């Protein structure tokens, strides 16, 4: 089974986000990029599937700052082949990314393509279903489990309220992963260093990155503080006492 995981890097939300001087985009100067969390689950699911059914796992990432670290970490967890797509990725949307990935995947001919079901900056829709259309493959998203047998996969598709649909899909297919069957495994940094010596990142040029297919943003801003929480200040014991008073008044104590 030839499995490809298409990943992207996104701004780390733990860091403070600033809006640039145009007022229409995030200020890239201080942005720290990390792997999209759900793409990390997609990598884990690919490795679990490989461990169960055999095959090869290829990771494809755009060549942005931090991509090498993410790719080597994936290899240390069990990915076999690493590809980064070289190009000018600044301000590139998911439509353009899907086209660049499709160009690569048409030659790689995977039976299974995994992506995270969404990323927090997908303003023009998730990559997975777009990629599926460009490749002529079926797509199922919100997936939290995959079992492969022959030319079919049985996947667990999540619905609100904890309902799961067991859905059968004919391969090749693209799946949008919500969660891997097990939490993404941890690998020690020493193993990543070891992998860096033995695994090579293949560089391929990205197809033309034309960011059409989305909307033009005329203004970006922080949510207006309408009814923001009343903040409780002070030492820990004072805050605890204030909370207890609030709980009493509210009738829960």
């Amino acid at each position, binding site marked *: 089974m030839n499995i490809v995981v298409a990943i992207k890097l996104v*701004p780390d*939300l733990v860091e403070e*986000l600033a*809006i640039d001087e145009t007022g229409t985009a*995030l200020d890239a100067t201080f942005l720290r990029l990390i792997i999209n969390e759900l793409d990390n*689950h997609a990598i884990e699911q690919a490795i679990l599937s490989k461990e169960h059914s055999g095959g090869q796992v290829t990771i494809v990432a755009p060549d942005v700052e931090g991509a090498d670290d993410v790719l080597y970490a994936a290899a240390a967890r069990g990915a076999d082949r690493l590809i980064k797509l070289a190009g000018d990725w600044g301000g590139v949307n998911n*439509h353009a990314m899907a086209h660049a990935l499709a160009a690569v995947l048409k030659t790689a001919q995977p039976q299974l393509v995994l992506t995270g079901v969404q990323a*927090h900056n*997908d*303003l*023009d*829709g998730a990559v*997975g*279903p*777009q990629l*599926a*259309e460009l490749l002529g493959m*079926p*797509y*199922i998203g*919100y997936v939290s489990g995959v079992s492969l047998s022959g030319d079919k996969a*049985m996947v667990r598709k*999540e619905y*609100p*309220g*904890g*309902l799961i*649909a*067991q*859905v*059968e*899909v*004919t391969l090749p297919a693209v799946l*949008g992963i*919500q*969660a891997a069957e*097990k939490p993404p495994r941890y690998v020690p940094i020493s193993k990543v260093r070891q992998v860096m010596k033995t695994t090579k990142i293949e560089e391929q040029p990205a197809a033309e990155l034309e960011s059409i*297919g*989305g*909307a*033009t943003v*005329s*203004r*970006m801003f*922080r*949510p207006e503080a309408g009814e*923001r*929480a*009343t*903040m*409780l*200040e002070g030492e*820990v014991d004072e*805050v*605890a*006492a204030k*909370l*207890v008073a609030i*709980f009493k008044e509210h009738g*829960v104590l």
Partner: protein
Amino acid sequence: MSQDIFVIIEHLRGRVADISYVMLAAARVLAGGVGGKVVAVLLGSEADGLAADLAADRVLYVEHPALADFTSDAYQRVLEGLIRDNAPCAILFGDTSIGGDVAPWLSARLAVPLVSYCRSITAEGKFVSQICGGKIMAEGDLPGPTALVTMVPGGFKPEQGKSAQPPEVVRVSPPALEGLRVAVKNYIEPATGDVDIAREPILVAVGRGIQNQDNIEIAEELAKAFGGVVCASRPVVDQGWLPATRLVGKSGKSVKPKLYLALGISGAPEHAEGIGDSEMIVAVNMDPAAPIFDVAKYGTTVDLFELVPALTEQVQQAKGG
């Protein structure tokens, strides 16, 4: 080209999802501005009864046995044809397990631009989307001549999309639905665990800020002092630190406790969606910019690992005394 607004009705096992009514409410606003009609698009098998309370000028109903359950393959084919034939100016989907499988596919297929995470739409055709886990809003004009939109809840109330007057239902023949590559085999009901968090009056919720499984103990202690239970946001459940029965949010349960005490939860939209009906939300998070403070009544940025033990003690005293 028409000025009509299509709303793709999401329904699951005989019930229309709330997001469908939210979209109808948004469509009414937009239709008022552009002068078009609100057209609800309902796909199903023996599902026309679901049209009864939709606040739409017209319902296009497509019936086929292959549409009894949602599958991306069948929905994509039916909707591609309907959009080509009717050329609406906007097509609204939920940013959900249904709309998310279809709208981006159609965007690539039909070369129609897509706006996701859309929270509100104005009569002038402006959209406001909520991105970066709810930390940033992006505003712009809906692209023309046709735009696909996926919507998140929060901007409109479901009641605004309901009507006591049943709309006109127009049946449309489905295209050939053969050779489908996706099939629903069965459903697995949500596990009924030891507790039903949707019915608990006091919930102590833990998020990524709890850091590891061992630390959940302090939240358990606090919940015990209150006589409440512990629940969690997605990252905690994905790590296997708490079972899926305790998951609150888009993919878990919606809760409505008297008190929702959020510990180390950032309040991403996917989580916030499940706690809107809480009577009172109190949030503890060291990031003053965390979106949870936009939905909480009270908040504090003190370290939860210092606060929770102190609070547990004081709650125990208050209960005892």
